[in-house]
């Protein structure tokens, strides 16, 4: 069927005969040799013909023929599977003949399986070693009659029992759990009893069996070492094992309530520990604030030079360490915190300056930078004194500055003598300390207030809290003032309270 036929059926006139253009536009005669547009693959001729002259507006998605799944291409000859009988080397096949008839019969079993591409020289019924590598054996010890009589008799273990034990050990490859389960003699013996006997027998055997003779000396040593190792591997302490198992048993037989209890205790102890750590940290913090520049716990008699502060403490400790090591500290740092090492008077100079001379010349010496500083800058450069004022902690800096302004003091000194600098430095430090203490006191007071509120909520009825509330503020103030004096201990008690709630 072509487009013409369809038009015919549906009585549509030829496109050429459209009104208005009729006769004027005859279809251009197809030129000889003009190729019709190629029919795409995958569309039947009939369907394509229906489309008529309309070329599809969209390119067809599938321009190639739909493909079937590819056939497996096999080159070469077909694989030849063959049913072949095989014997099993694990059953003793291929081993020399023995007198034991059962053993011989065991070798004979021939099973059949399908094998691909058997070699031409394959003998039906030959051993198949494919799975032989999985065979394992722990080769337990055994003893002879003589050995037993000489070394191994034990009153608690009659010979029959010991024999039975070793038989089981062979049969079950030293799986003591199974051996204890299959134990058939009386008295009943547990896993540990069996292990203890087995290992003690092994130890005796290893110890007493003579070493092979005529060994080279180094081989002898090796053999001795090996023997020691084997002995160690056979060590078994039955008491310890029984005790361990008793513990394990009691651990396993805990009821869910006990387990919940233990978990609760554990969590609680962890919590206590954590709150203790927190208290300790807070207390250390407070002590640091109270200690100010010098800090509490710094060595007595420490010389803290201008601008030392807490760093000075650390430096002093370093110094102390160095002294303990037997060094003088001379090489790098000057004595008494001098800026220049005493006696140093320029490169190559032999003259030694003394403390008196320095005092006479108004020379101040400051500590040299630490050892790790680059060589070129071993000695501090000259600087203005005011640069040695310790900076105030950024957290409190603004408040300290405000306090200074309140007092009408400026840090830009007209006369920055050593004494002045020291004074202003001390003033700043005390101000910083004051601000920090104030903060701590505020915090602790608010905490106390919160804890009290909580306590009242928990304990008191509503009337009680109201009664209490009346004098609460006054008392809080009084307490606060007391607590400020000994804020360290106050903080610890308050945090204790918190921990309890």
């Amino acid at each position, binding site marked *: 069927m072509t487009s013409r036929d369809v038009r015919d059926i549906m009585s549509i006139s030829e496109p050429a005969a459209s009104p208005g253009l009729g006769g004027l536009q005859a279809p251009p005669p197809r030129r000889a040799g003009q190729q019709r547009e190629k029919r795409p693959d995958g569309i039947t001729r009939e369907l394509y013909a229906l489309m008529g002259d309309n070329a599809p507006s969209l390119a067809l998605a599938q321009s190639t023929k739909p493909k079937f799944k590819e056939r497996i291409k096999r080159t070469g000859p077909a694989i030849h599977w063959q049913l072949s009988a095989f014997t099993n080397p694990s059953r003793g096949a291929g081993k020399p003949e023995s007198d034991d008839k059962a053993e011989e019969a065991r070798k004979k*079993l*021939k099973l059949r*399986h399908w094998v691909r591409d058997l070699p031409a020289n394959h003998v039906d019924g030959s051993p198949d070693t494919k*799975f032989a590598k999985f065979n394992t054996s722990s080769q337990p010890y055994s003893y002879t009659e003589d050995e037993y009589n000489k070394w191994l008799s034990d009153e608690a273990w009659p010979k029959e029992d010991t024999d039975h034990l070793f038989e089981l050990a062979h049969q079950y490859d030293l799986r003591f*759990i199974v051996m*204890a*389960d299959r134990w058939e003699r009386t008295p009943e013996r547990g896993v540990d009893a069996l292990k203890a006997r087995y290992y003690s027998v092994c130890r005796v055997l290893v110890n007493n069996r003579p070493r092979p003779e005529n060994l080279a000396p180094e081989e002898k040593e090796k053999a001795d070492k090996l023997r020691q190792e084997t002995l160690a591997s056979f060590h078994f302490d039955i008491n310890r094992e029984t005790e361990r*198992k008793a513990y*394990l048993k009691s651990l396993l037989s805990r009821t869910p309530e006990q387990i919940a209890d233990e978990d609760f205790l554990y969590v609680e102890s962890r919590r206590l520990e954590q709150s203790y750590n927190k208290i300790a940290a807070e207390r250390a913090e407070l002590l640091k604030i109270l200690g100010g520049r010098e800090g509490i716990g710094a060595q007595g008699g420490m010389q803290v030079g201008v601008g030392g502060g807490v760093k000075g403490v650390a430096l002093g400790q370093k110094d102390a360490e160095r002294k303990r090591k037997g060094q003088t500290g001379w090489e790098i740092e000057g004595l008494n915190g001098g800026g220049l090492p005493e006696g140093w008077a320029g490169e190559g100079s032999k003259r030694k300056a003394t403390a008196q001379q320095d005092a006479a010349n108004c020379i101040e010496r400051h500590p040299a930078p630490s050892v790790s500083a680059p060589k070129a800058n071993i000695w501090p450069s000259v600087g203005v004194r005011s640069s040695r004022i310790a900076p105030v902690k950024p957290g409190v800096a603004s408040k300290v500055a405000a306090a200074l302004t309140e007092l009408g003091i400026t840090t830009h000194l007209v006369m920055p003598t050593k004494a002045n600098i020291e004074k202003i430095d001390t003033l700043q430090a005390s101000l910083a300390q004051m601000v920090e203490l104030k903060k701590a006191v505020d915090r602790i007071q608010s905490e106390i207030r919160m804890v009290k509120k909580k306590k009242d909520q928990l304990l008191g009825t509503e009337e009680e809290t109201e009664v209490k509330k009346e004098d609460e503020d006054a008392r809080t103030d009084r307490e606060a003032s007391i607590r400020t004096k000994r804020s360290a201990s106050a903080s610890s008690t308050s945090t204790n309270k918190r921990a309890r709630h």
Partner: protein
Amino acid sequence: MVPPVQYGGDEVSAIVLDIGSHTTRAGYAGEDSPKTVFPTTFSTVPGSPPTYTHGNSLHLYRPNSIHSNLLSDGLVTDWPALSRTLDHAFRDRMRLPDLSEFPLLVTEASWNTKENREKMCEVAFEEWKTPAYYTVDKSVMSSFASGKGSALVIDVGEEMTSVVPIYDGFVLRKAIQKQPVGGNLLSSVLLSQLKNSTPPIPVTPHYLVKTKEAVPVGAPAKATLRDERKFNPEDPNCPTTLSYHRSQEMRVMHEFKESTCEVLSGGWDDATAASTPTRPFEFPDGYNALFGLERLTVPEILFNPQRFLPQEFTQLPLPASTSTIPSHPYSNLQPITRLFSNSLVQIDPDLHSTFFNNIVVTGGTSLTQGFVDRLQTELAGLSGGMKTKIHAASSPAERIHSSWLGGSILASLGTFHQLWIGKDEYDEVGASIVTRRGGK
């Protein structure tokens, strides 16, 4: 570098046979489901000679037929019937004239006796001419089917519930716990409860119903019965025997149990039980009703027999058994969790965590809705904080046939072939070879 996975299979066209107290399965090793599955029960029509029927057609009505089981306590007691069963399995179903080309792997209960094991070996070599034979433990096979060498297998089957610990593929026999609680007991209790309810609900088995009509919920059944088959215990000439009637009633009850019963997964609680929705069930004669409480109390017997087992059942005698491993008697049945903890007490404490982590649940009755969840909840309480993990196959077929499946896996392994007992060995040593070999 990860070593390449080694394919350990080596097919020697072995056949695996697994006879359970409800179903017998046989098929080729290496396949994932047995070739043939049929009821272990068989029917006998007396006469000379008597007519025996094995397989699925035994439920067909035959006058005077007697239904009996060839197992008791999981052990074979009726050897001629066993031979006929094998005949049905291999000749009728699998179309094998004999097993002369097929090694045979047979499963047995963990508490099998030496005599039984040797007898089975004899049957395999003498009657079936198998070139090689081996016997394995059902529970070990179930644990192998779950891919475990060490596991504690809880098998809740048709006849028994058993808890068997397995270490490295060996059963720890001293720790086996078993009792005669299973699908059969649950169905019996259901039957007696329905019959004794007020008003009694008549259980009419399929064989008595000729035609039936649809009736509304709770309305009496409108069915024409086959009066000539009517069971009458008084009449000695009645063509229907008690055993046939009973077996057909139990079939209805099995269906009832499977379609309605449910275990409360959070533990028994009267309020929860009362608020659990009812379920409909239609009996063969068309009677249908909604069942509520009984569908919950009956499976609860597994978890609390002291409370939920009716008094008349506590006097039942134990099934006859020659095994040396005793069952708990009906008068002193244990909850399933107690069986578990009783078993653990016998086991070295070092292994407890292994066993808690490898609990394999198998058997048809374990498919009761909610059973595994409930077991998980109850065992978690016993574990003393150890991780408890239950491995239960999600597909019902795998759960029911797990011991066959394990056998199928084992017999297709290349490393297993050293264990077979060859025909030559049997001829040389005799049937005692099965007990002499250390495999068990």
